[in-house]
């Protein structure tokens, strides 16, 4: 699956990075908590989020993410998009909610980034 396939199923607007739609994607994560994303995501993946502040793009830059998807029709300001463009990120906007966007992407074959989680006292 490529970012172009994501654009199709999300019926998405390509806000930035239209020249990189043939990039392959395998995994994604969905979060509005940038500190969680910074703590657990350690691969070049896709982030689906409802937050449109500059820190979403800066977090993506630190993690070398491939693609950002803004859910529920939200579109960040031009200066945020410009900094996404500067770092070579692909940015999409979809009218779907984050939940629905994740659902259709999962159906298409995208999977969650592997995150090791261990509860205390859990049988190994």
């Amino acid at each position: 699956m490529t970012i172009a396939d994501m654009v199709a199923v999300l019926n998405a607007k390509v806000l930035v990075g239209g020249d990189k739609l043939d990039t392959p994607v395998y995994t994604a994560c969905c979060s509005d908590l940038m500190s969680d994303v910074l703590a657990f995501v350690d691969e070049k993946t896709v982030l689906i989020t409802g937050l449109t502040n500059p820190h979403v793009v800066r977090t993506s830059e630190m993690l070398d993410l491939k693609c950002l998807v803004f859910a529920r029709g939200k579109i960040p300001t031009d200066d945020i998009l410009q900094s996404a463009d500067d770092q070579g990120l692909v940015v999409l906007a979809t009218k779907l909610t984050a939940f629905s966007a994740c659902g259709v992407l999962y159906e298409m074959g995208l999977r969650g980034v592997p995150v090791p989680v261990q509860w205390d006292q859990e049988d190994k």
Partner: protein
Amino acid sequence: MEPMYTGSYQVAKDDYTSAGHASADIKRQLKQIGVSGDVLRRVAVASYEVELNLVIHSLGGELTLNVYPDCVQLVSSDVGPGIPDLNMAMKEGYSTASEMARSMGFGAGMGLPNMKRNADDFNIESTVGVGTTITMGFHLR
């Protein structure tokens, strides 16, 4: 030993607009020096977390990058307020972040544990009323 490269960045309290610029620049400088891959990513993440902490929690401070032939060092030092209980602060989920910080996607209480996980060496010292100093080392090769 003298570092091969040094860079210093002033980070102001509550400056959410510029927060992250120092870390972006640190990442850029390191890339230019030839640091890449896993180490670059770990330095970038730890740097961003520590920079955000300066903005969110400190009264202002300084972030310093030192590059040695075999290691990258990040030092964050601020002028207060200091951390009363370091054990508590190092726990995942402990946070005193403001509403403002939370609305920007921070305040999960993940930053300090995440720095410790990403750095090869991690040291934190804090005195209430004086300030906090965090030193992180990342081995090259």
